[in-house]
């Protein structure tokens, strides 16, 4: 187990730079999730940490040791791949034992370790099977077992749950989280699914186009998004962004209503975006922020999502599941000032 540090990491393919100076400190035993849309560089970062690709510039440290010029096997890491990547011609046991191949452990200890890992992952009975006889979830468990058996300093997970069906994904998510609590090792987990990121991470790293957008706990990135990209990416359904402009201290929404929000800094121009999450935007006739016509209803049980056509375009709000408005109704929607996020319209940076 060890901490991990990335210092101004860049990666270029030919003349195209895909990572533009990634810096991050991960402390010992932390569960860090890299999340972002495809092509944002999250997998590339992981492959750089693993040593499967060479860094163009910058430093990678694992356990206070610079590993830039070390082979993957010398970095004391283990990786779990999206496609499982278990060796199809070997039994489950041999697959797991493969991680120990190069270790100098006595044979009896190796055997004990394999049994221990199989026990933790609940697959003692599957040890003699071939991968083709296993289900998707079991195969991914084998891959995790092969990674675990070596007791590496850092675990790297490259979208390991993407190939599983929804139910299994939820289950494996929980299993990996439990595993982390039990083993306590440092984990870097890459995913494009923000729900996975929110539910599993100690800290989330949100990436876009080779830049880190924000690093923070799930609660921080949800409640205090650093910019409009993070605001839209985290949370489902995503945050409504309403165009508005500044007039003195007040913010005027398109459609005329004014809201009062204390800003930490002033925007570069007059235009701002006011963000509000659907679950903070509720029918409110007393102190409405915006109003419009209901176009679609999405009942979810406890609450109903309502799509409302307003002067600022279509937005999503939430209504009580028992007495939702009807399609065609005009609704007034309000939100507490503490639930409004203000972003600079030009740069997208948060101002609250």
């Amino acid at each position, binding site marked *: 187990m060890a901490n991990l540090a990335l210092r101004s990491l860049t990666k270029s393919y030919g003349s195209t730079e895909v990572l533009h100076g990634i810096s991050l400190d991960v402390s010992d035993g932390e569960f860090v999730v890299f999340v972002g849309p495809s092509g944002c560089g999250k997998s590339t970062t992981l492959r750089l940490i693993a040593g499967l690709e060479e860094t163009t510039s910058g430093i990678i440290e694992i356990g206070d040791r610079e590993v830039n010029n070390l082979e*993957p*096997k010398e970095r004391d890491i283990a990786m779990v791949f999206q*496609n499982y990547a*278990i060796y*199809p011609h070997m039994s489950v046991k041999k697959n797991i034992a*493969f991680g120990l191949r190069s270790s100098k452990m006595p044979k009896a200890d190796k055997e004990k370790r394999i049994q221990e890992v199989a026990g933790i992952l609940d697959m003692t009975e599957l040890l003699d099977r071939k991968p083709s006889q*296993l289900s998707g979830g079991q195969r991914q468990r084998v891959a995790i077992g*092969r990674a675990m058996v070596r007791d590496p300093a850092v675990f790297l997970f490259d979208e390991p749950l993407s190939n599983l069906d929804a139910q299994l994904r939820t289950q494996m998510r929980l299993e990996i989280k439990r595993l982390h609590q039990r083993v306590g090792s440092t984990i870097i987990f890459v995913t494009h699914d923000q729900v996975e990121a929110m539910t599993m991470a100690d800290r989330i790293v949100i990436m876009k186009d080779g830049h880190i957008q924000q690093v923070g706990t799930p609660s921080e990135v949800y409640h205090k998004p650093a910019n409009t990209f993070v605001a839209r990416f985290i949370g489902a359904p995503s945050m409504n962004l309403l165009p508005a402009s500044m007039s003195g201290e007040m913010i005027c929404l398109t459609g005329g209503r004014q809201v009062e929000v204390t800003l930490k800094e002033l925007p570069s121009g007059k235009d701002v975006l006011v963000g509000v999450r659907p679950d903070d935007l509720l029918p409110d006739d007393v102190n409405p922020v915006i109003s419009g016509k209901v176009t679609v209803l999405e009942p979810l049980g406890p609450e109903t999502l309502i799509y409302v056509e307003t002067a600022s375009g279509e937005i999503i709000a939430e209504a009580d599941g028992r007495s939702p408005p009807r399609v065609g109704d005009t609704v007034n929607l309000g939100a507490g000032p503490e639930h409004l996020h203000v972003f600079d319209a030009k740069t997208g940076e948060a101002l609250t």
Partner: protein
Amino acid sequence: MSIARQNRLNTYAAHGVLILYTLIALFPVFVIIINSFKTRRAIFREPLAMPNSETFSLIGYETVLNQGDFFLYFQNSMIVTVASLFFILLFGAMAAFALAEYRFKGNLMMGLYLALGIMIPIRIGTVAILELMVQTGLVNTLWALILVYTAQGLPLAVFILSEFMRQVSDDLKNAGRIDGLSEYRIFFRLVLPLVRPAMATVAVFNMIPIWNDLWFPLILAPAEEVKTLTLGSQVFIGQFVTDWNAVLSALSLAILPVMALYVIFSRQLIRGITSGAVK
């Protein structure tokens, strides 16, 4: 007419065509084998008749087996075929792995260059090859044949195998790298077992032409002690008189080892071991 009935008719028709084709393909082999068990007179009188108590004779096999060199020919053919296949598969797979796995300058050109040999028959270069073999002193050795057959088989082997190796998941190879395997071990322990069906295909494709070849043994290795089976059988074919019993018996015997090799390889062909490796 029900759909099931129609399907059954289709099945019968398909099988009928296949059976007919099999009969046509196997007919010459069948004729060779039945005639090898007949007297010379019976071969000419009724070539398509089965041997019966009157016409049955092992004279052909006796002639072949009594001619002491026959086992030597057999052995030579076997050595040449197996060694050539071994080198074709080894070097072909290695080249294919390099082409499929590594990004380097001229990768595509190298692939095209290696594939060029598929289109150009090696026999065009016979004179040059003979000169080369004379200069290197390899004439009348089995090595001359093994080298030529390896060269002949490599282009197709590289072409087929590199296509298959591209399909082996990158994640699998990377997993091997993280588990501390060297590139050689990744090649031998991960990739080769996964492309085994393709290797078997290449082996079968190359085996028959090598085993049956008359051209290169005749030119490069006609000496008595390095004669192959096909060349050895020619002693029974004279300019004026041909010992048909012996020729047919020799050919019948020559089928056996090829069949054995084919059975070994085709078992690998059928095995779909990659299933379940990656989803």
